[in-house]
């Protein structure tokens, strides 16, 4: 990579960070559109979940089941906060790891399936997660869990690194910063992954499984690890949503959400690490804008989607270097 290329990239990165951490809050404060905080926070969190789906794609699988892990993560966090009295912040990694653990159990039998078969199973997974949430006593069934307290402080002694959200005048702003920071961390980590040797290993897996195996790549391990990380991200995303919404229901994440995560990746370009951010942003704002059409929202949305697939069947950025091989 040439020096000018690196410095251009760094400049873009700096501009982006400046935009989301400084410029946007300034614009919102100036325009008074504080509702936008929630919108942008949602975009950030949804893009984290979509990043997970992107990662599954990176190992050659079509994952339409991220909604299940978002739901699982959300419930784990909710249950731990409400019933075990744990700090919200502690439940975040716990929710993520719970999802990762479950995904290993599920992944071991299904990761060897390919294409449509794998997709089918993940789709069913989302629905089963919902049904389970409905059925188990601990999740409170259809009534869901409500009145979940806002995140508490992180601090030592009398000094708080992170304030108690309940004491904040605008917790939305705090959630915004939280989500943006996590989004940047998440995608930073993914960027590193893709550009490290591990990224090359995944690419080798995508391009030629047998050959990868014969040069010593443990494809099962790699797949399971990727899927576990993906599910971790899904669970994390769900857990934070619960913190914001302060409630969770079996229908909080459905098959539609799973499909949307997939869509975010596809729209942003499956070959680009930052694709999910773009895709989520476009889709979420698109959907939000259509809200004004009332009952026709879904109709118009799905029609536009169909038209999009007809016109650009290979996604927005179809200059994917590893397109052409059906995974």
């Amino acid at each position: 990579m040439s020096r000018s290329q690196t410095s251009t990239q760094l400049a873009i990165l700096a501009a982006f960070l400046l935009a989301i951490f400084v410029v946007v809050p300034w614009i919102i404060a100036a325009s008074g559109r504080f509702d936008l905080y929630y919108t942008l926070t949602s975009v950030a969190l949804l893009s984290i979940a979509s990043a997970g789906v992107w990662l599954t794609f990176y190992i050659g699988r079509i994952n339409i089941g991220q909604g299940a892990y978002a739901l699982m993560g959300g419930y784990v966090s909710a249950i731990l906060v409400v019933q075990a009295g744990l700090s919200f912040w502690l439940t975040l990694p716990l929710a993520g790891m719970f999802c990762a653990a479950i995904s290993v159990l599920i992944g071991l039998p299904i990761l060897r399936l390919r294409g449509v078969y794998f997709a089918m199973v993940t789709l069913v997974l989302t629905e089963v997660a919902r049904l389970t949430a409905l059925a188990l006593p601990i999740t409170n069934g259809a009534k869901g869990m409500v009145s979940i307290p806002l995140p508490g402080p992180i601090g030592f002694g009398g000094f708080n690194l992170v304030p108690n959200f309940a004491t904040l005048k605008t917790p939305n702003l705090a959630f915004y910063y939280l989500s943006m920071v996590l989004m940047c961390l998440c995608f930073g980590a993914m960027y590193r992954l893709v550009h490290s040797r591990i990224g090359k290993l995944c690419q080798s897996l995508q391009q030629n499984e047998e050959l990868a195996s014969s040069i010593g790549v443990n494809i099962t391990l790699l797949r399971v690890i990727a899927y576990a990380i993906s599910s971790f991200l899904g669970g994390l995303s769900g857990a934070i949503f619960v913190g914001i919404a302060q409630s969770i229901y079996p229908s909080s994440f459905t098959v539609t959400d799973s499909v949307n995560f997939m869509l975010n990746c596809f729209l942003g370009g499956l070959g680009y690490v930052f694709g999910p951010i773009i895709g989520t942003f476009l889709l979420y704002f698109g959907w939000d804008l259509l809200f004004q059409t009332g009952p026709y929202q879904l109709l118009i949305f799905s029609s536009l989607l169909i038209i999009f697939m007809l016109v650009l069947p290979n996604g927005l950025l179809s200059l994917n270097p590893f397109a052409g091989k059906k995974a």
Partner: protein
Amino acid sequence: MSAGETILEVKGISRRFGGLVAVNDVSFNVAEKQILSVIGPNGAGKSTLFKLIASFLTPSAGEVLFQGARISGLSPHIVARKGVVRTFQETTVFKAMTVRENIVIAHHLRSHAGLTGFYFGSQIARSDEAEFGRSADEIIDFLGLAEQRDKLASSLPHGHLRALGIGIGLATNPKLLLLDEPFAGMNHDETSRAVAMVGRVRERGVTVVLVEHDMPAVMKISDRVVVLNFGVKIAEGTPAEIQRNDKVIEAYLGSEDASIGL
């Protein structure tokens, strides 16, 4: 160059697919730094035998021992780790990577750092990467691919693809290299160069087992030859012995390959 001790033992290997017996009770040994070829008419079970040795298939009976330890039935990537590496019949490379990237990534088996090390760029990982780069360049020069170094594998002509395939095999630092039809589809000149290349591979200390149809090439390069027909070993010996063997001549006259070369 004298061959050393036995490095590979194929013992009574059989493989059934449903009712069809593709390989039937085949046994032979390969000595270190030897070049052994497996030949036979089409459909004789050579490819299946290869897959069995590299553990891409599990034998229905019998076993394969490498350096005295059983490798049959182990996961392919573990067998590769032990030093038995296979190249593929349909010149298989990573088409969307450059020549250099292909060979660098094939060094995977030589990594000392683990996945986390590579992710965080640990000291060991970085020295690994430096070594891989150096070794890849050395292999590229060895195979005469220096000009194609940064070209996408998908854009390479046939001969270079084959060389790349061998390069990938070499990158793993194998003790035993299984070459699946390395001379297929080559003209006379290309074959001579490929044969010389296989000879140089052996000089690096690698034992080579190859499956081939091209008789003149096989007879020229091999120390020993094993002949299969209908999944059964019908002969084994030096090239000269094989050429005089009645059963072998009969097997070949009965199929399309009429010439067994001289």
